[in-house]
């Protein structure tokens, strides 16, 4: 059987690339190819991962400097051809700064870095990223970020809702939406969004840190397993 081929893009300051490698391994994919930011080409793969971390120290704005590197131009090209791209945490920030995903990630409403488990409601299970989940299912995964407060103007938010492009929302363990369950003040409790073709996903939580029984939960592994099944 063909196993999913993936590339993980590494910028100076990226720090969760090995966490993503571990999750992709656990999901049964091939050993991911690590791609250094100075390279201008990306190998032919089924999936491109822009992992978490502090690319360029989060200086200027989180993700801003990485978004203008040559490798991101190559990612945009590949995404246009329909290759699946997932941006996690800092990767999400990079993809919004690069214009692949709408909106922006602002400073957390609490003005503090926040690292804790959150519950996420799966809002659209009909995509390559979420196929392993049921619509409305609540999963648990950690967040770890300073700038995860999702913002988009009202028209954009309406469009995202209307087109089924909200991937995950922060929720209570029972799946209710509440300010208490929203760790960063994101508009409409949005934790992750898709592009128009639903082949690009950006999300703030870390499914890769909920992919091993010893993490205390494996709810995040479904995302990687779903991709492994959908992309081959």
């Amino acid at each position: 059987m063909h196993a999913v081929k993936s590339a993980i893009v590494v910028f100076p300051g990226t720090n969760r690339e090995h966490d993503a490698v571990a999750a992709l391994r656990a999901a049964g994919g091939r050993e991911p190819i690590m791609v250094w930011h100075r390279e201008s080409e990306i190998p032919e793969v089924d999936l491109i991962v822009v992992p978490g971390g502090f690319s360029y120290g989060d200086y200027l704005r989180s993700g801003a400097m990485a978004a203008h590197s040559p490798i991101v131009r190559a990612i945009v090209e590949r995404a246009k051809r329909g290759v699946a791209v997932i941006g996690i945490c800092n990767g999400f920030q990079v993809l919004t700064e690069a214009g692949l995903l709408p909106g922006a990630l602002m400073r957390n409403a609490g003005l503090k870095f926040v690292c804790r488990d959150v519950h996420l409601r799966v809002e659209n299970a009909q995509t390559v990223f979420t196929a392993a989940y049921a619509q409305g299912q609540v999963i648990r995964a950690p967040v770890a970020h300073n700038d995860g407060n999702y913002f988009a103007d009202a028209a954009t938010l309406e469009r995202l809702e209307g087109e089924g492009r909200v991937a995950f929302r922060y929720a209570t363990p029972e799946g209710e939406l509440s300010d208490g369950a929203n760790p960063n003040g994101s508009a409409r409790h949005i934790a992750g969004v898709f592009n128009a073709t639903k082949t690009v996903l950006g999300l703030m939580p870390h499914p890769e840190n909920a992919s091993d029984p010893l993490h205390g939960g494996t709810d995040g592994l479904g995302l990687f397993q779903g991709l492994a099944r959908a992309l081959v």
Partner: protein
Amino acid sequence: MKARIHITLKSGVLDPQGKAIENALSGLGFGGIGNVRQGKYIELEIAEADAARARQKLDDMCRKLLANTVIENYAIEVAP
């Protein structure tokens, strides 16, 4: 020439840092304070003698990198 760039959040965008500053100021007893907004200030030297051309370059820099126009506005000053 020397350029100064002010980057501020657009008026519709919530600014939690500005709000925290406002609360802290009122906590310190400064009354009559409102609408505190926090922004960024960037200074740079640009090798360009013509002010209009410098502005154009700076505008390009702001749109491409220095500001995120989804949430931010920017203003450019140049001085010889």
